[in-house]
């Protein structure tokens, strides 16, 4: 009996839910850490949200990364506004999907003023590192959250904190540059959105 047990070796490559690894964790793959693969294979909080309080849309189809982040805001017992619920929809590479999933974990339950301060270091830390060429995905995720909170403040007709306004202006400027560069394609992207609705 003992000898037979010994023959059951851990496979060299794990698949999620392969049944032999604890909790069915994903293995590191290519340049990505196990944490990235975990978020990518089983993303947290994905999907569309009905009647969100704020939406952040960043990236574009031409560049290959599009992130939409939805938030629901509520007050906690101390009367602070917190992110009660958060969801994402992302078109993009492994890093884009993993960073989207990671930021929903980081932001969920946080007061808005703390959530605004989530930066790329925090996201990269949550993922145990990203390949250098993919670091921009973590910036994109942080931007999507900032835009969602900005959208919430605008909808509530509330004053925008200075830091958030600055961030919004930077994101808008970058978006304008890309849209100008690829104006024909951006139009097409809008058509796709409309057709979907």
């Amino acid at each position: 009996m003992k000898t037979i047990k010994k023959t059951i070796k851990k496979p060299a490559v794990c698949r999620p839910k392969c049944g032999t690894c604890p909790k069915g964790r994903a293995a590191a793959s290519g340049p990505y850490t196990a944490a990235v693969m975990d978020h990518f294979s089983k993303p947290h909080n994905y999907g569309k949200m009905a009647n969100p309080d704020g939406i952040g849309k960043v990236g574009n189809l031409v560049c290959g990364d599009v992130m939409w982040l939805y938030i629901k805001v509520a007050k906690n017992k101390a009367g602070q506004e917190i992110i009660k619920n958060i969801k994402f929809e992302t078109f993009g590479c492994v890093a884009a999907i993993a960073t989207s999933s990671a930021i929903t974990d980081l932001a969920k339950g946080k007061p808005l003023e703390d959530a605004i301060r989530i930066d790329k270091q925090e996201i990269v830390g949550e993922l145990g590192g990203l390949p250098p060429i993919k670091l921009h995905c973590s910036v994109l995720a942080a931007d999507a959250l900032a835009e969602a909170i900005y959208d919430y403040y605008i909808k509530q007709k509330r004053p925008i904190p200075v830091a958030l306004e600055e961030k919004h202006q930077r994101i808008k400027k970058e978006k304008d540059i890309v849209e100008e560069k690829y104006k024909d394609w951006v139009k097409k992207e809008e058509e796709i959105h409309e057709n979907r609705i």
Partner: protein
Amino acid sequence: MSKKIIKKTKQILKKARPRRIYMDYAAATPVDPRAAKAAAKILPDIFANSMSFHGFGRQAREVLEQSRADIASVVNAKAEEIVFTGSATESNNLALKGVMLANKNRGKHLIISPIEHNCVLESAAWLERQGFEVTRLKVDSFGWVNPQDVAAGIRPGTILVSVMHASNEIGTIEPIAEIGKICRDKGVYFHTDAAQSFGKIEIDVAKMNIDLLTASSQKIYGPKGAACLYIRQGVKIEPILHGGGQEFGLRSSTVNVPAIFGFAQAALIAQKEMAKEGKRLSGLRDKLIAGILKTIPNSYLNGHPAKRLPNNVNLRFDFVEGESMIVQLDVNGIAASTGSACSSAKLAPSHVLLAIGLEPQEAHGSLRLSLGRWTKESDVNYALKVLPKIIARLREISPFKTN
């Protein structure tokens, strides 16, 4: 009792051991055991420098010259027209730079297709920086070079035309014989990069009017570190590596005889099995293409449906990003590749997909599955089972999913 346990253990193992399927034969091939055995057998003993006069050297030279004759026979060339190099990249560099530099007193003009491998594109760009002129032809939506465009592009001072035999990405087979005829009639040298087609489809350098041809060992189940350039007798060419004067003075370096021997064995095997294997692979290829197009909505074929390499499948899917797709396939045990920007070191979409008229967002969703000698029908069936699930899953996460 114990038999039962063993059986159960085997079942658990079978379930636990993930299936691993290689569908990236266009990137690199495993070495055929027959070629590996041949190369390994001579590796310890045939070590001498093939240039040496002593018996050891003579032995190495014999193996080398036999390999040269074998490779030459596969493409209907003379043995002395084959120059061995270390890689297809090196062969292409030698062809472009060597011919342009050797003929610069006659002209400075080079014509290439836009879907060439990077080593041809970059060699051409380097020549441009040295003062040569380069014309990059257009291709149609299948990736085809129109021979008439080649004819129109040739002008006084045109020295060389370089068009690949078959695309490594989309598998399209170019009208090489027509282009060869035009070039021969106009007195212009014609080079073709046959790294992907050599050993897979018929090549006859005489019939096809080819002056220079690149072939590689590691794409035809031979060892890495061996490749060749066929140079038709009379073609004026300069070496780019100078030294001991090996390979008729065109490629100085101690010759890697065992790898070349393995290359020659692999080429002979490929030649012998070409007709049967080509038929088998095109069957699997067409089954895979038809199955995917049928089961996955918003999926499209890249390249020509019929005039393509027997082992190449290249598709694209709307609203799915290629890197996510290949990593998810890898997790499921299938090795594939993509032309997406996100998977490349330059973060730019594949130049081939852009050249056939795809827009960047369309190129992002491309997937290449290349089949080979060990691809079984059950592998194709498995891919057909897994891929629709992966695409559906990624579309579910994407904001562009069609509800």
